[in-house]
C-alpha cells in the first residue's frame, strides 16, 4: 500500500526512471472509480499506446486550479480532460501544446464544438464528446393540463403552457439560477434565444430574457429555490414528479428513462420561435507541455485512441450522454441509439461559451452575468439595473 503510494508519487514527478512508461491522466469524473467502465477504457488506451496510464479524477473546478499549480511546478500530467470553457484559459498560459504540434487532424470535428478550444486560430485540444441543454417535460402533467408539448415553440407558448399547468395545481418549471458557472450555462439559451450577445450584457434583448425568468418566478410558475438550484438539484426536483418542465442536459437521459413518470424532451425555444442556441458542454482532451518531449509520441497515440470515430462512439456509450463531435461519430452513435436524435440535433446547433472570440474573457463576463441573474431573481434589482451593472463590471474586468 505504502510502496504503491510512493511509486505513485515519483511517477507523477518529472522523468524518473519508473515514470517512463507511466503516463499521468487527469479527468473531472470522480464518480467513475477505478473499477468503472470509464477507468477500464482509459487503461485500454494506455495499453494500446504501450504505456501504463495513471488516472486521477478531480472535481471540475478543482481540476483547473490543480492544472495551473502543476504547470507552475513543471509537473503537469501528460493528458487532461478539461471542461471546455477552461481550455482557452489554460491555453493562454502557454501550458498546452497545440494539436498541430501533435500532428492531430482536427478538420473532422464540428466547428461549433471545436471553437471552444481554438485560440488565435490554433486548436489546443479535441472535444471527446459534447452535451447541451434541452427542456425535459413530465408527460402526465402536460396531459392533465391539456398542453401539447409540440405546441411549445416560442417563449409565449411556453409561458402559456406554464399558466395552464399552474391552473391544475402543479409546479411549472425549474432551472438552475445558482451563482456559479452553472447559472450562466442555464441562462444562456434564453439570453442567446432572445438574440442577445455576451459582448453586450445590457442590451434590450438580454433584459427581456432575464425578465422572462423573473416573470415566471413572480407568477409562481418557477419556485423561489431556482436562485440557489444547481443542475443536480433541478433534476432532483423534476424527479419528484411535481414539475411540468425542467431545463437540463444530455447527461440525464438515462435517469429520465428510469423516472416514475413518462418523460419527453423538446428543444429550448427561442423568443420568437425556432430552437435557441444552447451552450456546449463537455470536455476537451488536452496535452500539457512536457520538459521531456519524447513523451509526446505515446501521448499522441493515447489522444488518437480516444478520438477515432470508434473511440468517440465508445466514449459516448460509456458515458451514455456524450454526443460524438464528428459527423461520422454522430452517425455511428445514432445507429446504436436512435432515440437520441433530438440531442444530436441540439449539439449540432449548440454554441461554445468561449466562442465569438471571447476566449479568456468569457469567465469574467460569465461571472457578471450570473450575478445579474442572482440580483434580479432575488429582487435586489430589476433586470435592467442588474444588467447595466453587469455590463459595467464585465467591461472593467476584461479591460
Amino acid at each position: 500500500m505504502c510502496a504503491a503510494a510512493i511509486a505513485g508519487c515519483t511517477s507523477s514527478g518529472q522523468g524518473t526512471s519508473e515514470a517512463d512508461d507511466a503516463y499521468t491522466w487527469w479527468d473531472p469524473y470522480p464518480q467513475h472509480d477505478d473499477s468503472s467502465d470509464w477507468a477500464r477504457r482509459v487503461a485500454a488506451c494506455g495499453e494500446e499506446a504501450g504505456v501504463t496510464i495513471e488516472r486521477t479524477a478531480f472535481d471540475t473546478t478543482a481540476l483547473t486550479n490543480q492544472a495551473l499549480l502543476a504547470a507552475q511546478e513543471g509537473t503537469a500530467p501528460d493528458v487532461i480532460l478539461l471542461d471546455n470553457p477552461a481550455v482557452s484559459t489554460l491555453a493562454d498560459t502557454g501550458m498546452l501544446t497545440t494539436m498541430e504540434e501533435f500532428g492531430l487532424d482536427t478538420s473532422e470535428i464540428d466547428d461549433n464544438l471545436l471553437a471552444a478550444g481554438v485560440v488565435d486560430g490554433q486548436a489546443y485540444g479535441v472535444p471527446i464528446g459534447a452535451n447541451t441543454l434541452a427542456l425535459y417535460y413530465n408527460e402526465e402533467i402536460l396531459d392533465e393540463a391539456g398542453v401539447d408539448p409540440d405546441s411549445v415553440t416560442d417563449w409565449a407558448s411556453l409561458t402559456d403552457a406554464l399558466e395552464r399547468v399552474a391552473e391544475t395545481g402543479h409546479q411549472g418549471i425549474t432551472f438552475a439560477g445558482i451563482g456559479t458557472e452553472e447559472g450562466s450555462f442555464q441562462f444562456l439559451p434564453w439570453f442567446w434565444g432572445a438574440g442577445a450577445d455576451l459582448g453586450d450584457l445590457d442590451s434590450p434583448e438580454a433584459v427581456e430574457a432575464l425578465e422572462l425568468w423573473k416573470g415566471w418566478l413572480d407568477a409562481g410558475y418557477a419556485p423561489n429555490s431556482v436562485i440557489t438550484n444547481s443542475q443536480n438539484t433541478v433534476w432532483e426536483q423534476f424527479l419528484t414528479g411535481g414539475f411540468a418542465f425542467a431545463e437540463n442536459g444530455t447527461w440525464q437521459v438515462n435517469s429520465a428513462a428510469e423516472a416514475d413518470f413518462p418523460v419527453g424532451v423538446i428543444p429550448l425555444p427561442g423568443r420568437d420561435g425556432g430552437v435557441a442556441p444552447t451552450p456546449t458542454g463537455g470536455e476537451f482532451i488536452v496535452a500539457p507541455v512536457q520538459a521531456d518531449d519524447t513523451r509526446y509520441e505515446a501521448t499522441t497515440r493515447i489522444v488518437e485512441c480516444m478520438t477515432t470515430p470508434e473511440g468517440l462512439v465508445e466514449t459516448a456509450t460509456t458515458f451514455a450522454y456524450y454526443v460524438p463531435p464528428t459527423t461520422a461519430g454522430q452517425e455511428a452513435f445514432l445507429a446504436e441509439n436512435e432515440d437520441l436524435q433530438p440531442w444530436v440535433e441540439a449539439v449540432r446547433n449548440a454554441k461554445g461559451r468561449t466562442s465569438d472570440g471571447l476566449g479568456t474573457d468569457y469567465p469574467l463576463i460569465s461571472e457578471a452575468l450570473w450575478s445579474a441573474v442572482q440580483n434580479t431573481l432575488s429582487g435586489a434589482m430589476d433586470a435592467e439595473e442588474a444588467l447595466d451593472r453587469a455590463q459595467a463590471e464585465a467591461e472593467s474586468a476584461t479591460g
Partner: protein
Amino acid sequence: MRRRTASGPRWTAFAFIAPLAAYLVLFYAYPLYRNIDLSLHDYTPRAFVQGDAAFVGTANFADVLSSDAFGTALWNTAVFTLVSIAAQYAIGLALAVFFRDNFPLSPLLRAMFLVPWLLPMIVSASTWSWMLNSDNGIVNSVLGAFGAGQVNWLTSPETALTSVIIANIWLGIPFNLVILYSGLQNIPKDLYEAAELDGAGPWQRFRHITMPLLRPVSVITLLLGLVYTLKVVDVIWIMTLGGPGNTSTTLAIWSYRRAFGTGQPDFSQAAAVGNLLILMALVFGFVHLYLRRREEWS
C-alpha cells in the same frame, strides 16, 4: 576543553530550536511572505504558470478598496462577526451558568450541545440550507403552520445574511459553552456561599461574582471567536455562495471567490483581500495583548 563547554550548550540549544524554527519558517513565515508577494504582483493565470508576474505595488489593494463590493463586504464582515460572537457568547454563557449546577441528565444535555462541533461542516451547513429552503424547507413549513407566509431565507437580499449568521451562531455555541463552563469551574464555590449569606440574589451573584472573575476567560473566548469568525468561508459558501448578489459576501468569501469561485482565478486580488483580513485579526490580537498587559500591571 573549556571552549567546548562554552560553545557546546549553545549549539545544543540551536539544535533543539531548529526543528521548531524550520517548522515556523516553512509553514508560517513562507506562506505569509508568499501571500504578500502574490498581492503585490499581478498574477493572471498566465503569469502564474510562466512565473513572470509584473510587480504592481499597491495597485491590487487600490483595486480592492475602490471596488463597489468592498463596502458591502466590509459591512457584512462586521455584522457577521460582531453579531455572531455576541450571540455565541451570550448564549454560551447562559448555558454554561445553567449547567453549572449539576442536575440529573445535565452531563448528557451538555454533551448534546457539543453536536454542532462534532459534525463535519459540510453536513451541518448543508442541513441548514435544506432546512431554510424557500419552497420545501422545514422552517418555512413550521412557520406556514402558524399562518406565516413563505420566507425566502437564503434567496432574498434581506434575509440571506441573517440566515448564515443564525447558522454560524449555532455552530459557535459549543466552543463558547465549553470554555466558559471550564472557566466557571475555577470560581471558588465559597464566594457564592458567602454572597448568598450576605443576601445577594442570583442576579447580583452573577453580576458581581461570575462576571468579574470570568473576565480573563471571557476576553480570550471573545478574541478567539473574533479571529475565527472573521475568516469563516465554509458555512456561507455552502449555504449562499455569498449571494444573492453580494448580500452575504464577507471579505473572506470575496477572497475565496476571487481565487477559486470563477473560471478565471485572480490570485493577486484574493491575496490582497486575505492580507487585509490578516491585518484586521492582527489589530485585535494587539488589543488583546495590550489588555492582558494592563491587567498584569494592575
